[in-house]
């Protein structure tokens, strides 16, 4: 890894208490358990935090957000959202959360450093009931999402390798 390697924050967000709402956090947990990364890559469970994430967001060059994304597709469908599209959406957003992640990104820009941001998302099935488990279609699609996150990390200049299995 060169000295100039971009720092990459892989940020899983969502509420793990509400089924697929927590799929971003679950994806990051899976990455932490099964892979090793070069020092320029940081994994973070962002939970449902909004403005409190500004510290981490402004201190990285690139952010890969992993989150549930509602786009009217089939549960488990994967999406990729890029910087300019996200930025555009801010102007028109009527979210019920005024302090959520997109808003926090806008704040980062005002603070002076808006990281290069990509969102990798999945269409959720259930984000309302209380459960720690992902629904079946989302659990089934999680490995595919993981592959895309790993590809994204590599494309941004991060190094990834599977963890050696723990000897029995």
């Amino acid at each position, binding site marked *: 890894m060169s000295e100039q390697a971009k720092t990459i924050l892989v940020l899983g967000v*969502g*509420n*793990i*208490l*509400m089924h697929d*709402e927590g799929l971003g956090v679950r994806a990051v947990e899976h990455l932490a358990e099964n892979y090793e990364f070069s020092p320029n890559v940081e994994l973070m*469970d*962002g*939970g*449902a*935090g*909004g*403005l*409190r*994430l*500004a*510290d981490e967001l*402004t201190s990285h060059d690139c952010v890969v957000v992993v*989150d*549930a*994304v*509602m*786009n009217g*597709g089939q549960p488990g*469908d*994967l*999406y*990729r*959202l*890029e910087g300019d*599209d996200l*930025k*555009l*959406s*801010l*102007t*028109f*957003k009527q*979210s*019920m*959360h*005024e*302090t*959520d*992640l*997109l*808003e926090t990104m*806008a*704040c980062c*820009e*005002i*603070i*002076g450093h808006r990281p290069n941001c990509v*969102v990798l*998302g999945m269409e*959720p099935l259930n*984000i309302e009931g*209380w*459960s*720690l488990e992902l629904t079946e279609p989302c659990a089934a699609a999680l490995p595919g999402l993981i592959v895309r996150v790993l590809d994204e990390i590599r494309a941004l200049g991060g190094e990834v390798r599977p963890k050696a299995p723990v000897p029995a």
Partner: protein
Amino acid sequence: MAGCKPKTAPVTPVGNYTGKVVVDPINRIEGHLRIEVEVENGRVKNAWSSSQLFRGLEIILKGRDPRDAKHFTQRACGVCTHVHALASTRMVENAVGVDKRIPALGVAMRNLLLGAQFLHDHIVHFYHLHALDWVDVVNALSANPKKAADFVNSAGLGHRKHTEAELKAVQDRLKKFVDGGQLGIFANAYFLKPHAAYKLGPELNLVATAHYLEALKLQILPSRMMAIIGGKNPHTQALYEGGITSYDAITKDKFKLFKDLYKQTMDFVLNTYVPDVLAVAPHYLDWGGIGGTTNFLSCGEFPSNEGDLNSRYLPAGAIYKRDIANPKPFDPNKIAEHVKFSWYEAGAPLHPFKGETKPKYVEAKDMSKYSWMKAPRYDGGAFEVGPLAQTLVAFAKGHKETVGLVSMVLKHLGVGPEALFSTLGRTAARCIQTVVIGKEMQAWMDNVDKMLAKGDDTLLAKWDMPDTGQGVGFVDAPRGVLSHWINIKGKKIENIQLVVPSTWNLGPRDDKGVLGPVEEALVGTPVFDPKRPVEVLRTVHSYDPCIACGVHIIDPKTNEVYKFKVC
């Protein structure tokens, strides 16, 4: 300076509208809150506060290890994560009997962690969740930056010095946002077209906007303070029943970093936040008579002994019927939750130890059932909780630092203590509380240094899980009295109940039909333009509502223009 102080007593305009106004959802808060008011001749005559989301966290906690509770409850929401973890931790400590044995160092570190949360929450609330109700950002574009700098530098309110160039730069940036249609965080604000209820001159609007932007950056510092002691933020991981596991935070370098961040944060509080409140308040002095309630409750906060509510630095107590001459002691047995107007199975008011969570939704257009919140009551009455309640209790009990600051603010505004019972009083009290807590944090840090110097580095007490037990954890959080209640059976959670600040304040009517505090506070509020009821928002936002749902979804459906690529 001319233009920066009101020449005549401010009066918020009253319209002539009669009819209903619904604000759904209320923006700039966490969670989905719907406020419905009935307006008659431009004033609110009746109000309904309704939570549209069911919060059934209690249900998935049954049967789990009591120590797991803190990790679940703090995930209910993205804003007040740590205070839920603390309430759950205290609840279990109380149930297993370790609460009186928490090591002094552990207590001090916990107080510093919670203190950092207060600094963060109150700064973010004043600037980012509440200021846009009072400050017209667009109007700041027509300010004269030199006049604005002169005002700040000569007003004698304690502001740090500003330069014309600094304020001009803010104005230029702002112009870029507005011209580019990239209003971002200001989108949906009511001042995008001029509104008669906004009273600040362009110069003060510019100064306040500059500080809004400055606070965005500053808030990172107290957030980092929380991460140092809490291990991470959001969702702190350091609390454990018996104390705290912040071994890293008590190392010399880390604790020094915490102290440096504290110093920078307090510089902002004392040289920007306090002077801003003093500068803005005179323009909205009539709000010292709008938005008040009757009864106030505090459970106290920042203990020296975790097992004794009376050891808390900010005192616990209850004020009935605004009688600040006679504060009463706080008695946890007087709490009960009513469900007559809530979407739960009917039943008598229950103390939280006997509390039930049996949801039952019915559509009721006559508002006979209208909220997922229960209605918590104290001694049968509706009590406001939060910074105003805590400040009133402390003031009534002669808490020296609080009395000094309250008296200073009242003198500056030329009003008596009766003005505290209002929306303006609530917003001023939050600032006063920030200073009181912030200053006391210095004493806790000194205390930590002393203990560490003596070689006392015990953060955690040992204990055993009993087969059965019952306990409660009280936190007087930035939003007010928070309590978690547990029954333990077979070493597992048999029942758990959460009574949260926003339920106290934003809950519906009780069994006797008495309005909840926010509902009561809204009655009498002027509404000039029913399509842009900023006056309603002022009072609702002054409670810093957070109704803990934690739903966190990027929803491109709401954006017609928005298109993104499918993998």
